[in-house]
């Protein structure tokens, strides 16, 4: 009897891990996309997700300003805000850092991290904010052994798979996609052939933050509310995901994120009681260090060969 229960718990951890991994995948794919096309290592990705996760709460309740828009519209606006923020960031900040040293870009994204933390702390504080009931899916997907997949996670899996498939198709079959690929592989050659690098960068930022906004909202839905701390962990777990996948590979980021989500959940389920609370979140970070030491180019990354 206890065996069956153990398998069921294990499966539940695994399934939750898959769901969480899919949420991470949306954010990680956004990260990988920016890195692939613009070469910017966006340390603030998790914090952007936090911002987007908060937005539906702000819009649909009278927390900061009394808009009280219908919750579903608020979610739609959030996704649109993702697109908009992508454009604002590109035109307002990152345009000035094309061709600047890695250090400057990293510090700029860290400065964004601090700014977002400052804004959020000032507006709503670090506490928990419940999501409006109307947007929370009240259904679950029943699976084997009485395990159920939560609604938000099911949505996340669907969205993540669809996004990755759509992005891969976009890169392979559309003209814009080929332009993005060209810009990613050799900026100068692409420019010579008449590609507007600036436009490709704008497109990359817009797509990336749109995907991130979906991820941010779904993550908040999965815990049926928003709080700041989990997102800071996502910020670093996304790195584990993309490094495992090979930083500039979109399917790699997807697979990496799923792996990281499963590792985190299994770690939380089985190792937290043994070691200390929160070890499940640290486990993927330790895993990240191992990957960096053993397999720096990840599973699908482009290996860079240096010459003098």
């Amino acid at each position, binding site marked *: 009897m206890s065996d069956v229960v153990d398998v069921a718990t294990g499966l539940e951890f695994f399934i939750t891990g898959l769901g969480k991994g899919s949420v991470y995948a949306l954010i990680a794919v956004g990260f990988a996309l920016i890195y692939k096309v613009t070469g910017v*290592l966006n*340390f603030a990705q998790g914090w952007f997700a936090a911002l987007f996760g908060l937005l539906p709460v702000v819009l649909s309740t009278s927390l900061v300003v009394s808009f009280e828009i219908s919750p579903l519209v608020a979610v739609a606006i959030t996704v649109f805000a993702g697109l908009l923020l992508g454009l604002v960031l590109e035109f307002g*900040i990152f345009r*000035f*850092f094309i061709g*600047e*040293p*890695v*250090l*400057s870009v*990293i*510090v*700029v994204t*860290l*400065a*964004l*991290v*601090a*700014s977002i*933390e*400052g*804004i959020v*702390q*000032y507006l709503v504080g670090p506490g928990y904010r419940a999501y409006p009931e109307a947007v929370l899916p009240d259904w679950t997907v029943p699976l084997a052994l009485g395990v159920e997949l939560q609604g938000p996670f099911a949505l996340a899996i669907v969205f993540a798979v669809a996004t990755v498939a759509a992005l891969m198709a976009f890169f392979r079959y559309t003209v814009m996609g080929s332009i993005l690929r060209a810009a990613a592989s050799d900026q100068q050659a692409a420019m010579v052939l008449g590609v507007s690098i600036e436009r490709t960068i704008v497109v990359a930022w817009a797509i990336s933050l749109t995907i991130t906004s979906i991820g941010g909202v779904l993550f908040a839905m999965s815990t049926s509310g928003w709080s700041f701390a989990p997102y800071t*962990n996502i910020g*670093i777990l996304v*790195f*584990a995901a993309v*490094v495992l996948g090979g930083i500039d590979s979109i399917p790699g980021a997807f697979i990496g994120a799923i792996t990281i989500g499963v590792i985190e959940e299994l770690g939380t389920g089985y190792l937290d009681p043994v*070691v*200390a*609370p*929160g*070890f499940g*979140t*640290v486990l993927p*970070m*330790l895993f*990240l*260090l191992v990957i*960096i*030491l053993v397999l*720096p180019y990840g599973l699908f990354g482009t290996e860079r060969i*240096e010459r*003098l």
Partner: protein
Amino acid sequence: MPCGEYFTSYVSRMGLVRWRTERVAFLLALPIPFALPALLDTGTLSVITQIYIFIVAVLGLNVILGYAGEIVLAQGAFMAIGAYSSARVITTLGPGLLPAVFVGGLVTAVAAVLFGLPSWRVKGFYIAISTLALQFITEWFINAREFSGIHGGPQTTLPSEIGLVGGAVPISSIQDTYYLALVAAALFALVSLNISRTGIGRRFRAVKENDLSSAVLGIDVFRTKLLAYAVGGFMVGVAGGLFGFYIGTLNVGQFGVSLTLEHYLMLLLGGVGRVWGAIIGVSTVVFLQDELRTIIQEVAQGATALEPLFFGAVIIVYLALEPKGIIAGLGQLKEYLRSWPYAY
């Protein structure tokens, strides 16, 4: 070259104080830090003490980032390790402040070398990612009460009066802390200046500029990087220990990513790889921060959370406009004034 003074030997060319004006300025400026405690109120003195402590920390960062070019995002973790380990030494063994801070520095140096192990395989932003991960792991480790046997609990309160060595020379007032921090800052500034003038410093710079070609020239890149981690980590750890005593009660929240960013801002604002840059950067930022806090408190209560937003905006604008640092700007100004009123 200004007319009238020439270097006649390499020793004088390499000297720390080279020109007559510099010598005079040095002698004139020397009494100022010692006279300050008599002139200023305790509030300002406390701010200047913090500046001295942060100078040590940023000089440590400067060794790692400015000299060896490793983008290490674990500054907060290093400070935390230094602070907690020296606090642990003080509360359990009680050998006095100096030995405790020294042990804190050594522990941080060892931790920094461990943090630097990924540089065996990777460089650049991979180092940034791995050290950021280690920053989070360190925060989690210190926050976990399960490991209190190692780090002494996430919240540690230090005694307000500690002997310098053993029970001798008790340090309690802000004046005492001020002098201690001043000595530490001066000592490590001298150490940093000398590191940059010796072979070690040149090896660091070679690795920073191009690790592949310095390997071809026979430099053991990995060892050089680890040495930079150890030296820089020691300095940051000492600063952490002093900072812990300065603030009295340790809390993990004080050693987060925002502290790392703050120190990066200080170093970048002053000038990366320059000792005077670090000193100027720290002084500017800490004074600004203090002023800003007062202003924010007056304008709106509870708006202190907006402080990081301000600094984030400053650093972004600054990096977009003048990424070389105040010290480079001062150099340009000096050149301009030297040939004034002529263009050159």
